[in-house]
């Protein structure tokens, strides 16, 4: 650990020196680094797919769609837009301040820390990295020890492509994170659980370090069957793909549970079952298209959620667990009790509870009774329901008639609220996330108003009052002696 402490201190020193040198301020430097990330991913696609398969059993198509493709796109957008993003924003100043000028400059925070997660170890590391670099920071990335092959890849390959006096990678678990958090950073970006998010924020508070916390929650999916029954096939495909097709439910924006009117539940389940089989075959474990559970601990956690006898009784599909092979079968539950553990913590696995309600409008009450999630999904064509969902619930985001896909829309901020997080990123929001918006105001030395200065008198008071209320005409009268000072 001593060696690790020294490594961290040494790294911090070097990164701070690099930042002080001004090298990272150059837009050219930033674009070169981001282009290098792009090249790194393109050059190593096969290797990346391989490490993701080793860590999570991800199929290469899933790996590309969810991780590599996302990073490539993110890098492209950043390179294409950086010049625009970095332009200072001019502000209009009220006439009173004429001829003063105002603008806002985005400046890098300095040396930032990115702590990424194991479920999308490549994109959740490189995407924030792109944001940090785009904004002109030096950055240390600590990847998750639960995805060791991806972590090792990043630790070995990033130094080969990027400016390693400015961008560094450190591997390790909670003990390394603890050492890192003892130091002062100019910003911390964390992706992970709310429990650890609290620890991160408390540590950051010691140094008044601003944080972005991308956390999680139970993302509900409302299925308003009658209004979308014409397209039910698409609906079911999207839910199935969204739940099991992306890291086997281990995603912060995964469909956590479904809400549907009681009378339609069995129709939905009857469509889900064959679809799961068509996506993953009769033996999903062997399909190669279903990710593994990341670790034995998480298998045990999911097992425990299912072990509750009332939950066991609600299994209508799947339920088998192979701890040795880190496999949990795609499982569907029908109405597990709302007070069971599985309905009160983020599932983060391939188990899908279907909760029935008497009236689809009741789903809103259930959603509101839980912590604010990262995403709410609703399949409906009922405009009233859409309005109610938008105005009565709160979540990081809301997606109508699809799942997960808001992640790919880089014009939309990606982040949580309440338990699901603080701050946001993607697209320009990534740039902003790692920037301090510095206000610059330039006054003129030429025009000076006596009324600004003591000693005070009633004329000056009237003058300033009128000036503030921008009553320019009255002000003029005052100055011309045509209005009495009060």
């Amino acid at each position, binding site marked *: 650990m001593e060696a690790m402490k020294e490594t961290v201190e040494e790294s911090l020193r070097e990164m701070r020196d690099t930042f002080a040198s001004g090298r990272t301020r150059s837009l050219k430097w930033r674009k070169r680094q981001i282009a290098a990330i792009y090249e790194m991913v393109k050059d190593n696609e096969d290797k990346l797919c391989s490490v993701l398969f080793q860590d999570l059993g991800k199929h290469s198509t899933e790996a590309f769609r969810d991780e590599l493709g996302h990073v490539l*796109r993110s890098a492209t957008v950043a390179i294409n837009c950086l010049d625009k993003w970095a332009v200072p924003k001019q502000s209009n100043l009220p006439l009173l301040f004429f001829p003063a000028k105002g603008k806002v400059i985005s400046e890098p925070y300095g040396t930032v820390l990115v702590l990424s997660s194991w479920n999308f170890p490549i994109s959740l590391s490189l995407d924030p990295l792109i944001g940090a670099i785009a904004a002109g920071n030096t950055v240390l990335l600590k990847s998750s020890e639960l995805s060791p092959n991806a972590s090792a890849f990043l630790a070995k390959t990033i130094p080969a492509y990027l400016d390693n006096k400015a961008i560094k990678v450190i591997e390790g678990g909670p003990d390394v994170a603890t050492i890192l958090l003892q130091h002062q950073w100019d910003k911390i970006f964390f992706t992970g659980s709310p429990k650890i998010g609290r620890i991160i924020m408390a540590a950051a508070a010691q140094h*008044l370090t601003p944080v972005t916390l991308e*956390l999680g929650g139970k993302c509900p999916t409302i299925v308003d069957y009658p209004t979308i029954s014409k397209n039910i096939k698409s609906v079911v495909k999207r839910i199935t793909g969204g739940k099991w097709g992306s890291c086997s439910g281990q995603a912060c924006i995964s469909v956590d549970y479904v809400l549907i009117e009681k009378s339609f539940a069995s129709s939905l389940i009857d469509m889900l079952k064959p679809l799961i089989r068509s996506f993953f075959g009769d033996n999903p474990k062997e399909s190669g298209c279903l990710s593994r559970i990341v670790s034995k601990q998480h298998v045990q956690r999911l097992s425990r959620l299912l072990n509750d006898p009332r939950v066991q009784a609600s299994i209508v599909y799947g339920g088998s667990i192979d701890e040795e092979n880190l496999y949990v079968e795609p499982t569907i539950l029908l109405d597990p009790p709302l007070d069971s553990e599985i309905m009160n913590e983020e599932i983060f696995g391939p188990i899908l509870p279907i909760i029935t309600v008497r009236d689809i409008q009741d789903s809103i009450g259930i959603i509101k009774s839980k912590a604010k999630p990262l995403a709410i999904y609703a399949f409906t064509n009922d405009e009233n329901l859409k309005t109610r969902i938008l105005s009565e619930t709160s979540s990081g985001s809301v997606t109508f*008639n699809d799942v997960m896909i808001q992640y790919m829309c880089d014009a939309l*901020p990606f982040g949580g609220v309440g338990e699901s997080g603080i701050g946001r990123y993607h697209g320009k929001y990534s740039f902003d996330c790692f920037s301090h918006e510095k206000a610059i105001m330039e006054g003129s*030395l030429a025009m000076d108003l006596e009324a600004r200065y003591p000693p005070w008198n009633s004329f000056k008071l009237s003058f300033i009052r009128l000036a503030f209320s921008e009553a320019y005409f009255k002000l003029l009268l005052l100055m011309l002696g045509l209005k009495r000072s009060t």
Partner: protein
Amino acid sequence: MAATAKKVFGAAEASDLVNELRRSFDDGVTRGYDWRITQLKKLLVICDNHEHDIVEALRDDLGKPELESSVFEVALLRNSCKLALKQLKNWMAPDKAKTSLTTFPASAEIVSEPLGVVLVISAWNYPFLLSIDPVIGAISAGNAVVLKPSELAPASSALLAKLLEQYLDPSAVRVVEGNVNETTLLLDQKWDKIFYTGSSKIGRVIMTAAAKHLTPVVLELGGKSPVVVDSNTDLKVTVRRIIAGKWGCNNGQACVSPDYILTTKEFAPKLLDAMKHELETFYGKKPMDSKDMSRIVNSNHFDRLSKLLEEKEVSDKIVYGGDKDRENLKIAPTILLDVPLDSLIMSEEIFGPLLPIITLNNLEESFDVIHSRPKPLAAYLFTHNQKLKERFAMKVSAGGIVVNDIAVHLALHTLPFGGVGESGMGAYHGKFSFDAFSHKKAVLYRSLFGDAPVRYPPYSRGKLRLLKALVDSNIFNIFKVLLGLS
């Protein structure tokens, strides 16, 4: 003579308060445009009808001159209310966001929603401005809000409690008076946002408490705001603005007060002479008798400031002023020349009427002096030199930069007002206040038509190729793949 019994505010009361406000929020009391407008109008009425009471309370608490109270508290608040009233519809409207080919067909927008029940903790130096301005933001954004004014300005605190109770909707807006005990009890509760104005030391305490509930915070802190004075400037205007900004704004007790001056050895004598001359013009030969400056807020701060002056190697550097009157809590405008850089007065935020001038061999050195200290809330520069202005704006990291003036950026609602590093996180004023108290919810509307099988398992090479093309959003590639030409 009966004194009204002070209501006990214990843990139960704190919890009940939050629950009550949460019920109001959940019932939708604060969400509607009309409610927000009504509250804002009432705040405007308070400014219009109670200016006299406010001026009196500020005179009691701080000995603040009427002009300062009218201008820097009431007038600024009035403008803030009027701006919110005028712009609220605009601010509340969703922003459209651009979607890309990957999410086509879709439309996207960003909806501003209130965070819920928020806590505003304000400071003693501008007790009305720093209480009501954030409350304007909280209400505009549709939140329920609890205000905890500073006990160090007791008359203002009592008046705020009385006026807000009298005019605003008590089911959603409340004031809790008290000291650290009441503040601690409030901080134990779960808030949806905490807005704090005060010291960096307490800022840490606030953020640590907020971390327990993952509550986002805005911390408006302070720091040593430096003033760099170039010989190439209009000396008279420069000096008048520095004096008005320092002693004319609550006698140096302001978060953006010019804390210390940096200038060349060559220019310092001229600067000092000009300052002495203008100080006499503003405050007369006996500044201790001048009614145009606030007093020191209390004996604790008086003693703190005395200690700064009494330090060895500092006391002999006083070149103007230095008179003290503990009974009346007055310290004369005091200038010091070349105190040691490691003295107390150069290490902590002065927050009083003492102004050290540090002389350098050349102005370049000022960048190092500033850089070696924590990032301040504001940094000032007086010069005609365009290149120097640009370098200063780029190189100096502070909450905000003002060239050729002092503190006026506070009055500009088009510039974000906030700190960085030790001087804080988050920003407000104008629309930035509305945004500070809002969650920007991303909303994606997708169509159920047009589904790409490429999204779903079982995965194949063809699907992978198509995905890659989609990610590039290159329409030609996509057609090539679809037509089997790739």
